[in-house]
């Protein structure tokens, strides 16, 4: 657990969490033109310079000065651009809209209706925190990513802006003033949880990618002569090692694997701590607030009714430890998922105990109350169809390997290919096990699907956020008299795709689809 004094200090210094004790600051006077904080100039200069760090190092390292004038002129232009941006940028709140205006030659004015603001994110890196400023990003429903970026504002201005946006009368279902509804902390991650998060997340894989990329980069960057120099120094040992290697030596390989594994685990834990340090998810009225980060503190708030789709993921390791991860989609479509992952925005709750889910999920969305008790399985033909598919795949692979059209590239003796056939009973067993956890549940207010054998995943769609219900039937489905049910929702950036379930008996599928559409049509969709 975190020491409470430290925690308090963090929260106090945290602009992101609106002050819960002090009354909210007065909203800025409507239609008053506001400007960015003057420190924007400093921060954008540093940002531009940081972007030129690697090219500069490259120039110095290679001694290749011919591109230096070119780089310098780009640097100058970038600086000029960011200065122009600062001096021409202004914003105001007017008639229920956030109006931003920028541009020197072509002036651009953007009006964002306040009631369409989905998410207001505050982000403060180390430098920002020292200077007591924050980056503010505004996202809207149906928008593609960040609609307006106010970079940077002072903490107080950002708090004012947030208050102005979320307490504006046009902002439907807005939270009541902070003084009336107390904050309810839903999730708080301490050191123990963060270490668990790191251990059980697949951030380790990204280390391997990083190493690979670095190796590739180094290969390009380091002159061939240097590598040969190193090799010649290593010469005797390397030769010896290589000569021993005629018989495969397991020891160094195992050692290397162990080191890599340990390094990736350490990397993963460190990543988890840096990203999600002091993670809190709070609920105030109808809004969810998240604050997290060791170096860069991030805050975002998400009105609860804007959750389009909730996904509970239980990868194998987490399932064993009875842990889960929760993702939530808003109606914003994001193009750069990599960036979102780096900022930890793709997960709503990075780590939740499974035993807490029945309490936590209804807090995230009223529509998830009650949680499903009974799951309906799909038609039993799902197992036999999966069996046929996997058997067919294995048989054709076996035939291809055994019959030998691939002999010239594969070193496997043809008869050994028949060992593949032992996979058939295994896949049949897996298919049967997977079927046990495959199904759907329909509470009145939400529709849930679940699937997965080792890695389980549960999708929940509040009926009010369901867009279109689709039934598909291909000729083989028709033979089995089943349908594939698909539910379309808005956004779908983090969840990956909409809930989909194959092999639902035709009668069940059609009545389910019609009932879902009927109920959806009686609710009002609010982006």
């Amino acid at each position: 657990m975190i020491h409470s004094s430290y925690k308090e200090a963090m929260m106090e210094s945290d602009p992101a969490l609106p002050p819960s004790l002090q009354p909210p600051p007065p909203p800025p006077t409507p239609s008053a033109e506001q400007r960015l904080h003057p420190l924007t100039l400093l921060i954008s200069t540093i940002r531009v310079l940081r972007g030129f760090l690697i090219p500069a190092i490259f120039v110095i390292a290679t001694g290749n000065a011919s591109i230096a004038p070119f780089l310098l002129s780009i640097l100058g232009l970038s600086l000029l651009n960011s200065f122009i941006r600062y001096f021409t940028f202004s914003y105001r709140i007017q008639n229920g809209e956030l109006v931003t205006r920028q541009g020197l030659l072509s002036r651009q004015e953007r009006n964002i209706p306040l009631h369409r603001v989905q998410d207001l994110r505050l982000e403060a890196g180390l430098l920002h925190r020292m200077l007591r400023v924050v980056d503010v990003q505004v996202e809207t429903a149906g928008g593609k990513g960040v609609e307006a970026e106010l970079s940077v504002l002072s903490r107080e201005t950002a708090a004012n802006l947030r208050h102005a946006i979320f307490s504006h009368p046009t902002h439907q279902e807005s939270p009541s003033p902070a003084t009336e509804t107390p904050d309810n902390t839903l999730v708080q991650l301490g050191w123990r949880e963060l270490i668990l998060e790191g251990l059980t997340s697949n951030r380790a894989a990204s280390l391997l990618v990083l190493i690979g990329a670095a190796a590739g980069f180094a290969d390009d960057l380091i002159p061939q002569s240097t590598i040969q120099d190193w090799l010649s120094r290593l010469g005797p040992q390397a030769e010896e090692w290589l000569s021993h290697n005629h018989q495969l030596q397991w020891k160094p390989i195992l050692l290397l694997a162990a080191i890599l594994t340990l390094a990736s685990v350490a990397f993963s834990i460190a990543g988890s701590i840096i990203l999600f340090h002091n993670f809190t998810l709070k609920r105030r009225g109808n809004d969810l607030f998240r604050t997290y980060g060791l170096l860069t503190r991030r805050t975002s708030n998400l009105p609860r009714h804007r959750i389009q789709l909730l996904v509970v993921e239980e990868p194998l390791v987490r399932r064993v430890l009875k842990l889960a991860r929760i993702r939530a989609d808003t109606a914003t479509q994001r193009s750069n998922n990599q960036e979102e992952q780096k900022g930890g925005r793709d997960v709503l709750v990075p780590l939740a105990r499974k035993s807490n889910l029945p309490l936590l999920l209804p807090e995230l969305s009223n529509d998830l109350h009650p949680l499903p008790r009974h799951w309906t399985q799909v038609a039993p033909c799902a197992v036999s169809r999966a069996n046929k598919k996997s058997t067919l795949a294995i048989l054709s692979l076996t035939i291809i390997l055994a019959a030998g059209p691939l002999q010239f590239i594969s070193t496997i003796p043809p008869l050994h290919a028949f060992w593949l056939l032992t996979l058939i009973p295994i896949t049949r067993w897996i298919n049967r096990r997977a079927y046990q956890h495959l199904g759907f549940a329909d509470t009145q207010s939400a529709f849930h699907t679940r699937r997965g054998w080792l890695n389980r995943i549960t999708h929940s769609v509040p009926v009010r956020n369901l867009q279109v219900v689709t039934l598909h039937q291909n000729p083989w489905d028709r033979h089995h008299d089943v349908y594939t049910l698909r539910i379309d929702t808005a956004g779908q950036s983090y969840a990956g795709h909409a809930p989909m379930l194959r092999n639902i008996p035709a009668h069940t599928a059609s009545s389910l689809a019609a009932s879902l559409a009927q109920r959806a049509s009686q609710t009002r969709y609010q982006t």
Partner: protein
Amino acid sequence: MSEHPIEHPPRQTATPFPIPPLDHYHALDPNVIWLWRLSSTINWLVLLTLLLAAAIGLGGFLWHQLIPSLCLWTALLLFACFWIAYYPRRAHAAWGYRLNDTVLEIRKGVWFQVIQLLPLSRLQHVDLERGPLERSLNLASLTLYTAGTQEAAITLPGLHHATAAALRDTLVIQGGDDGV
């Protein structure tokens, strides 16, 4: 939240289940068969002309390949004729839509059948489109937009122009209570 009560029971105007046979649906305008025939004739003509040119060009170099490729081309031509004559009728028979006061249901697909249910309150906007061929056959197609992702645009082609306009007005009025 109060306006979306969980205990709210579905209204009893629900679509009857199981889905009744196709004659309960509105069919598309029969003229659409000719529209599809025309457009697929154009597509096939382009493809077949290109293939014929390729076959003759190839035959110029490898003359013994000319006869087989022309045979293949003729087979393809026969298939195209069959396809143009047969498929649009089947597709027309498979297409259907029906509307109660809350849900629009569209079904389509000859071999790969699809049934789409669109709750009217999810309708964002409706486009009515008429291409030159459609205009000549007095047809129109409607495109219905939702806030969804994969099925954000649902198309209902081959409606009689007047039907399409009337349907659009109905949809807009019934789906018009949305606050988005």
